[in-house]
C-alpha cells in the first residue's frame, strides 16, 4: 500500500519536472553554450562565459543581429564529458538553439560532436585539440590554435637556432598528453629528434628526477607541454639543476601567473602564444592590434587580467555573428555555410580563413614566439 503512495508521490515529482520543461517561445536568435565554468578547467570556462555575456549584451544594446536580439543560454559542465552530452542534448532538444559556441575542454567538445552532427547544429568549439577538426566534421568548427601548431612553431624556432635534439617532458592531463602525441608525430617531418620522453603527474611537486635523466642525454633543448602549476615547477627545477639548455614551454602557460610562479627561473624561456598577450607591444601597423586592444580594454575594465581563453570565446561568438549577418537569417544550414566562408576575419587568435577543408583557418603566423625577459613577454621574431 504505502509503496503505491510513494510511487504516486514520485510520479507527482516527475510531473512537476515535466511542467518545468515547457519551452518558452520568443523571437530571438538563440546561442547555446556549455562551458567548464567550475571545476579544474574553470580557468578556461570562467573568462569564456564572461566574454560571451559581455559581448552578447553589447550586441543587443546596439540592436542585435538581423533585427533580432541574441539570447545566450549557457550551462556549466564542470569539465565533465557526461554533463556535456546531457547539456548539449538539452540545448538541442529543449532550448532549440540556433547554434552553439562552447566546449571549453577537448574532452567535452569530443563528447558533444556526435550530437551536433546528428542534429545539424552549427558548433564552434573553444577547445584546443586538433582531433576536433581533423578529420573535418561538417557542423564542427573551432577557434583556438591547436597543439600541433604550437609544436610546429617551436620546431621552426629550434631550426632557426640550429637545434635538432629535443628532450620532451609533458604533464599527464589531456592537454599535455595530446601535445606530447602531436610533438612525437610532427618531429620527424621537421628533422627534430626526440632524445627523451618524460612525464609527470598533475599533482607532482618536484620533477628533478625526470630532469636529471634529461640532463644525461645529448639533448640540445627541452620542451615542456603542460597546464597549471606543472610547467612552473619544471622551469624552477631546470634552473636549480643548473641545466643551461634552452627551455620551451607551450601556449598552455601563456598567462602572467606562470611568470609569477616561476620567478627568475622563467627568464629566457620561450613559448608560442597568441598575440593577445603582447597586444600593446605590437607595431601600430599590425592588422590585429585594434581588435586586441579593444577586447583587452573591454575585458579588463570589467573582470581583471585578460587571458587568451576568453579571447577564444570572443572569436567564436564574432565569427558566428558575422555568419548570421551574411546568412540574413538563423537558418542552420545557411549559417553553417557562411561560417565555412569566413575569410580574413580578424580575431584575438589571429586572422581566420576558414575553408571546407580547414575548419580552424589559422596559419602558423597566428602564433607569436615569445621570450620572457625581465618578468614580461617579448616578441622574438
Amino acid at each position, binding site marked *: *500500500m*504505502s*509503496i*503505491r*503512495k*510513494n*510511487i504516486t*508521490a*514520485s*510520479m507527482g*515529482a*516527475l510531473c512537476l*519536472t*515535466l511542467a*518545468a*520543461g515547457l519551452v518558452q517561445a520568443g523571437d530571438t536568435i538563440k546561442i547555446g553554450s556549455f562551458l567548464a565554468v*567550475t571545476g579544474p578547467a574553470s580557468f578556461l570556462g570562467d573568462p569564456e562565459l564572461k566574454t560571451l555575456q559581455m559581448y552578447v549584451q553589447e550586441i543587443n544594446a546596439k540592436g542585435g543581429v538581423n533585427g533580432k536580439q541574441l539570447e545566450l543560454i549557457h*550551462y*556549466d559542465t564542470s*569539465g*565533465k*564529458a*557526461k554533463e556535456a*552530452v*546531457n547539456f548539449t*542534448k*538539452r540545448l538541442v*532538444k*529543449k532550448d532549440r538553439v540556433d547554434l552553439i559556441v562552447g566546449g571549453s575542454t*577537448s*574532452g567535452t567538445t*569530443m*563528447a558533444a*560532436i*556526435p550530437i551536433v552532427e546528428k542534429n545539424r547544429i552549427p558548433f564552434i568549439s573553444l577547445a584546443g*585539440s586538433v*582531433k576536433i577538426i581533423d578529420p573535418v566534421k561538417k557542423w564542427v568548427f573551432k577557434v583556438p590554435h591547436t597543439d600541433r601548431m604550437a609544436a610546429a612553431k617551436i620546431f621552426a624556432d629550434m631550426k632557426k637556432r640550429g637545434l635538432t635534439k629535443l628532450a620532451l617532458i609533458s604533464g*599527464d*592531463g*589531456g592537454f599535455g*598528453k*595530446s601535445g606530447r*602525441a602531436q610533438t612525437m608525430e610532427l618531429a620527424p617531418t621537421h628533422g627534430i629528434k626526440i632524445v627523451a620522453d618524460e612525464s609527470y603527474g598533475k599533482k607532482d611537486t618536484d620533477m628533478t628526477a625526470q630532469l636529471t635523466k634529461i640532463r644525461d642525454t645529448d639533448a640540445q633543448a627541452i620542451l615542456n607541454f603542460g597546464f597549471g602549476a606543472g610547467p612552473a615547477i619544471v622551469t624552477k627545477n631546470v634552473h636549480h639543476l643548473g641545466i643551461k639548455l634552452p627551455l620551451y614551454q607551450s601556449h598552455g602557460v601563456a598567462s602572467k601567473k606562470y611568470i609569477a610562479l616561476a620567478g627568475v627561473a622563467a627568464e629566457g624561456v620561450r613559448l608560442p602564444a597568441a598575440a593577445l598577450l603582447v597586444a600593446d607591444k605590437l607595431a601600430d601597423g599590425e592588422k590585429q592590434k585594434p581588435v586586441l586592444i579593444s577586447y583587452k580594454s573591454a575585458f579588463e575594465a570589467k573582470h581583471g587580467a585578460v587571458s587568451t581563453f576568453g579571447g577564444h570565446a570572443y572569436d567564436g561568438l564574432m565569427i558566428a555573428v558575422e555568419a548570421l549577418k551574411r546568412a540574413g537569417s538563423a537558418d542552420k544550414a545557411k549559417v553553417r555555410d557562411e561560417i565555412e566562408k569566413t575569410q580574413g576575419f580578424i580575431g584575438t587568435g589571429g586572422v581566420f580563413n576558414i575553408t571546407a577543408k580547414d575548419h580552424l583557418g589559422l596559419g602558423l603566423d597566428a602564433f607569436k614566439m615569445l621570450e620572457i625577459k625581465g618578468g614580461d613577454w617579448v616578441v622574438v621574431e
Partner: protein
Amino acid sequence: MSQRKGFYLLTLLVVLLPLLFPDNYFVTVVAVSAGLNAILAVSLNLLMGYAGQISLGHAAFFGMGAYTSAILTTKFAWNPWPAMVAGMILTGTIAFFMARPVLKLKGHYLAMATLGFGIIINIILVQAVGLTGGPDGLGEIPTLSFFGWQVDTDLRWYIVIGSCMLLVVWLALNLINSRSGRALRALHGSEVAAEMMGIDTTATKTGVFVMAALIASLAGSLFAHQQSFVSPDSCDFFFSIELVTMVVLGGMASTYGAVFGAIVLTFLPELLVVFEDFEVMIFGAILMSMMIFLPQGMFVGMQNLLQRLTHRRSALPGEDPNEPA
C-alpha cells in the same frame, strides 16, 4: 504482495511516460540517465543496503564495462553484444578475485580498499592512452541493434534502458526475497550470528559483490553505446560517491529507495540549472535538509511517515506508532 504491486506501478510509470510525452527532453534524455543511475544504485544497494558492505569504488566496475565495450567495438570492430558479455566476464572475474581479500575488511578499512581500487582503475584509464584514449576519452562508439532494429534515437534508448532497469529491479526484488537474500540480511545483522545459522558468509559476500559488479558492468556498456563517447571522468571517484549518495538518500536496504534516490539525484540538478550560480548551493541545502529530516532516506522515511499516519488513525491509544512492524 506490496512489493509486486510496487513493481507493477513502476512498470506502468516507465511505459506511460513516453506515451504521454514522446518528445520531451526530460523523458527521453534525463530519464535515460536516471534509468542508468537507477540500475547502478540498485546493484550497489544489494551490496551496501542488504549485505552491509560499503563500496566507494562502484564506478570502477561501471567504467570497466563501459571501456571494454568501447575498446572492443571501436578498436577491434567487435559486435556490441559479445563486447558487452566480454565486459561482464572481465568485470566479474576481477570482482571475484578481489572479493575475498577485500571483503575480509570491515567498516572504514573496506571503504578505503574499495576507494583505492576505484582510483587505480581510473588512473589506468587515464594513463593507457593507446588503448583508452587517455583523458580525452574514446568516441565514435557504434550504437546497439536488435536484429536490425537500430537503437539510434533517444526514445529508443529510453525503451532499452527502461526495460533493463525494470529487469534489474525485478531481479533484485526476487533475490532479496529468496534464501540467499535472507542470508544477506542475516549477514548485515551480525556475521557471527549468520555463521552460527549455517550461512557461508564468505561465499555469500563474494556472490553479492560479483553480482553488483556484473550489473554495474552491464550499465557501463549500455552507457558507452548510448553516449557513443566515454572518458575517465564519467567513472571517477566522484561518481562512486554520487552512487553511494543515491542509495543513502533513497534509503538503504530498499530497492525502490535506490531507484527513487537515483531519480531524484539525476533530475534535481537538471531542474536547478535555472538558479545558475546558486545551483550547487541549493542542491547541497536540499540534500542536507533531507538527511536531517529523513535520516533513514527519503523513500524509506516517507514510507514510515505514511505508515505512521495511517496507523495513528486506527491505532489504540498508548500504542507506539514508531514501533516497526
